[in-house]
């Protein structure tokens, strides 16, 4: 276990390093990416630009600039090039919003996908199964920004059932918080529900042909028990694994569009705005933050996988 943790930690550092170098280099080769020119205003003189360059250290060699940026990131001194806002502080402000969005949506998409996938598999080939297949394909095919905009327009603006975007702190008003989150949650979930229910359906149908399912029936178990304890229990292993990876990915950037459509002011929206303005420090910080969560959830998934499937522990050399 200690070796596993150490190996994971090292690979995480490696990933973060690689990601940060890549982002840094991309920004430095990007046309119009020169921060000094952007900071100098609309009609800058050559001397003004040069002064900014020296003041912010943009004249240093790239590796020195990179080192300075990393140092600032980890000491919390990183500020935006454009408005001087503290980057880490901004991320902290957006974090609860992004988490609220991802967690709610994650639960919704998992629950709905299990219910629909199971129903579809048990009724495989029937009318309801075929209907769900079509619905799932529609769900997978609809772009998030379009679904979000449509829901917001029809259920928010036109019908007035839901608020017109925005975020309310949970502590301020739990009901208002919930009310503001419903549309974003479902918007983010729809694609995943469609995809996950398909994955689960096909996995269940495959598992039903397993020898141990035949054994379970031969034991005289009720059909319900066979399905839940023998089929679903095994089919959930890959699904939960997938969920962990996707949940990490949603926090680490997958919610950008949803946050932007509903103006939730989460980390994703902050990233989108910063990229729009070619503001390197927040982009760097948010990218590192995203990569961190993705790697962390990969590890969580590996641990959860071992808990769900006893054979993994064995192969890990426990005995």
């Amino acid at each position, binding site marked *: 276990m200690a070796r596993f943790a150490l190996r994971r930690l090292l690979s995480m550092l490696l990933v973060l390093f690689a990601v940060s170098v890549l982002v840094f280099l991309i920004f430095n080769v990007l046309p119009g990416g020169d921060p000094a020119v952007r900071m100098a205003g609309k009609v800058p003189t050559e001397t003004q630009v040069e002064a900014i360059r020296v003041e912010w250290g943009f004249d240093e060699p790239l590796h020195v600039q990179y080192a300075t940026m990393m140092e600032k990131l980890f000491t919390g001194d990183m500020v935006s090039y454009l408005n001087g806002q503290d980057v880490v502080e901004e991320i902290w402000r957006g974090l609860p919003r992004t988490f609220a969005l991802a967690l709610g949506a994650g639960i919704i998409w998992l629950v709905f996908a299990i219910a629909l996938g199971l129903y579809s598999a048990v009724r495989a080939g029937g009318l309801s199964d075929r209907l769900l297949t079509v619905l799932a394909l529609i769900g997978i095919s609809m772009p998030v920004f379009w679904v979000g905009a449509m829901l917001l327009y029809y259920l928010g603006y036109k019908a007035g059932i839901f608020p017109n975007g925005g975020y309310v702190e949970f502590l301020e008003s739990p009901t208002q918080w919930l009310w503001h989150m419903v549309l974003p949650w479902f918007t983010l979930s729809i694609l995943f529900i469609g995809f996950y229910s398909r994955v689960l359906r096909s996995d269940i149908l495959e598992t039903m042909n*397993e*020898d*141990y399912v*035949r*054994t*379970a*029936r*031969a*034991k*005289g*178990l*009720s*059909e319900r*028990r066979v399905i839940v*304890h*023998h089929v679903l*229990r*095994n089919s959930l*292993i890959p699904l939960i694994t997938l969920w962990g990876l996707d949940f990490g990915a949603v926090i680490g950037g997958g919610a950008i569009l949803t946050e932007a459509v509903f103006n939730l002011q989460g980390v994703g929206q902050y990233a989108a705005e910063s990229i729009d303005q070619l503001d390197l420090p927040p982009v760097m910080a948010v990218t590192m933050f995203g990569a961190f969560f993705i790697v962390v959830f990969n590890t969580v998934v590996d641990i959860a996988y071992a808990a*769900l*499937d*006893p*054979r993994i522990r*064995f192969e890990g050399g426990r*005995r």
Partner: protein
Amino acid sequence: MAGSALLDVRDLSVSFATEGGVVRAVDGVDFELAPGEVLAIVGESGCGKSATALTLLGLSRGPNATIGGTAGFAGIDLLAAGEEEMRRIRGDRIAMVFQDPMTSFNPVHRIGRQLVEQIRAHREVSAAEARARAVELLDAVGIPDPEARAASYPHELSGGMRQRAMIAMALSLEPDLLIADEPTTALDVTIQAQIIELLRELNRERGLAILLITHDIGVVAEIADRVAVMYAGEIVERGAIDEVFYDPQHPYTWGLLGSVTRIDRPRPPRLPQIAGAPPSLVDPPSGCRFRSRCPHAFERCPRHPGLDPRLAESVDHVDRCWLPPEEKRRRRQVGGIIALEGGEETR
């Protein structure tokens, strides 16, 4: 023997609708099994023996399956009984052991839990009682340290131990009938012998009736009282073990017996085999189904032979071959042993 039979299968037929057409997996199979008896159904892959076993437990039912005939068991027709009635019989009155103990246990549940689950599906007992019973059962089938094994996951046991645990699970409610579908096929030879020995003990000591499905005629010889040989969905010969082994009537049986390597004979340069492949069950040939592979086929074979007694001295020994018994006795002897044909001599 009718009336006293534990299991009385009459004219069983099973067909499955597939993309290639309707497969007649089992076609008019009859047999009886007395209490405490071991009946072996032997035949090659795809002859319908496993389909027969699964159908008896109602496990081959489905939208693609058509099942005909009757299977009387304790006053119930297993083929006509409702799903809930069958569920109560499965695992309680009739238990089944499968071929591959690697894949027949659910990999994510502990062995003990899988036994407990079966006990509690049929009896109102506490989890603790069921668990104690599970440990007892594992002990009874010769699993060392049963307490620890009950807490093990299937992958933590060897193949032989897993098959023992499978048998323990099958025995958990003291069934009247055990259906063993290729119980030794996936195991090493020494382990095979141990499992057969265990089944034989259970048969002798508890009077457990066993329907043994196998392709291994050697296993049949060790444990069965009677044997039914299946070919292309039909029983082609059926009788007491000694009768069938020492006076086999159907050329297919000769072929099966002839393909066994014998340790007490000089080793042949090539293992004898039955030339050709079994016919398609989508469109089975008319007449005797073995005739395209049979070197002894003659003008009567295009007529379908009934499963009839053809020997004056034993009415329970039945077969589907038109050759007169004395002609068979003359033809099946090849170099002092029974074989389908005499290699180079007849070629």
